[in-house]
């Protein structure tokens, strides 16, 4: 049996809330007991809105911060909407952290291609905080971020700050834009060949809608990256988040326990299946 803490939602309070986009909010939430404060970038918590329901949400804040956890939530249905509507000081239930994180230690010494689509930038933001804090441990770092339109760009101010750094290459692209947009328009997989990375020494972290990740992984393979050097963060509906109920099963993979971050070879063949 896992320790009871991992089964029981811990009541915590909303400390701060920020609107990021029309339907996307970041909540700063109390961490709860000290032993549950630490997380690895890529992991998630189960967040419970009392009387509504519980959903998995990835950590989107700084893994070195110990006083709060950040969650960036897009309102798509009942629970996520209720989360984005929680006022400051409201209580919610929280359990975890769960799941595998991005292989940051294994990637030391390599070049990193961080590729995010839409809200997928949120689970990758802790990676950016980490690699920029320990910048000397990594080679060239590229962030390629694609989203729907300029008004859907998440963490815009932070992206601008990262873009100004000399030690990080930031590329932002949108699927379509008005004529006032001075930046890049085009889909993420089409930009992969223009990244100019050293395929023999690059590890890629992908997070975004599944179709985007699938086609981006193909583009990375076409560019010469080894399958084992590509990691994807998967999403499946979850109940227990402990590998017990089978709700999140994806072929032979339990996304809650074996994932959400998984190496491409474990997903190959599953990604293009219509329904599992």
């Amino acid at each position, binding site marked *: 049996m896992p320790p009871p803490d991992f089964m029981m939602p811990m009541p915590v309070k909303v400390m701060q809330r920020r609107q990021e986009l029309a339907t996307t909010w970041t909540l700063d939430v109390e961490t709860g007991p000290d032993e549950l404060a630490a997380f690895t970038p890529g992991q998630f918590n189960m967040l419970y809105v009392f009387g509504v329901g519980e959903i998995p949400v990835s950590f989107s804040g700084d893994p070195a911060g110990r006083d709060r956890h950040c969650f960036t939530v897009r309102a*798509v249905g009942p629970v996520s909407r209720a989360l984005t509507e929680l006022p400051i000081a409201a209580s919610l239930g929280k359990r975890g952290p769960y799941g595998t994180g991005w292989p940051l230690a294994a990637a030391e010494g390599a070049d990193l291609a961080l590729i995010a*689509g*839409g*809200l997928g930038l949120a689970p990758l933001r802790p990676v950016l905080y980490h690699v920029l804090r320990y910048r000397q441990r990594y080679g060239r770092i590229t962030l390629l971020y*694609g*989203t*729907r339109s300029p008004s*859907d760009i998440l963490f815009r101010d932070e992206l601008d700050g990262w873009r100004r750094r000399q030690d990080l290459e930031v590329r932002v692209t949108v*699927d*379509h*834009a*008005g*004529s006032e*947009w*001075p*930046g*890049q*328009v*085009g*889909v993420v*997989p*089409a930009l992969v060949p223009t990244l100019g990375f050293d395929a023999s020494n690059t590890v890629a972290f992908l997070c*975004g*809608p599944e*179709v*985007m990740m699938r*086609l981006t992984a193909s583009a990375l393979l076409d560019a010469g990256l080894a399958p084992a050097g590509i990691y994807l963060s998967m999403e499946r509906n979850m109940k227990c988040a402990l590998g017990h109920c089978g709700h999140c099963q994806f072929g032979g993979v339990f996304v809650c326990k074996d994932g959400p971050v998984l190496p491409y070879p474990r997903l190959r063949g599953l990604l293009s299946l219509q329904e599992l």
Partner: protein
Amino acid sequence: MKDIAQLVGEHPFFQGLDPSFCQLVCGCARNVRFEPGEYLFHEGGDADQLYLIRHGRVALEIAVPGKWSLSFQTLQDGDLVGVSWAVPPYHWAYDARAIELTRAIAVDARCLRQKCDADPALGYEVLQRLLPILISRLQATRLQILDVYGDRDQ
């Protein structure tokens, strides 16, 4: 300063082209520059040039009359602007606007088409270089239609 033969030979679209073919292409090519905001061409116009970007950025746009222009792709250094010059009736299907100072090689499409007709080996070379671009644009369009960043149910 580099001459046009060098510029054409170095551009990714024509890189590795047989020197005799390159000479034929160069006979149709000249250097051009566009200021930010200047249009390379407009939808419906005769597709009588193709542009190979050397430096800069160009937005491909569809105009919605009286409202706004929607940019669906930007092209930059090393890219080819425009494909309608290759297929009849040779009319542009969208607008192309420089959004930065853009230096390009303009190739007279009529001249190139004539040379390709006269020498099918050159025509085949040009088509072989054009087809991957067409396919990658088709795939990009497919992804845009899927609107992957929208709600799953949409």
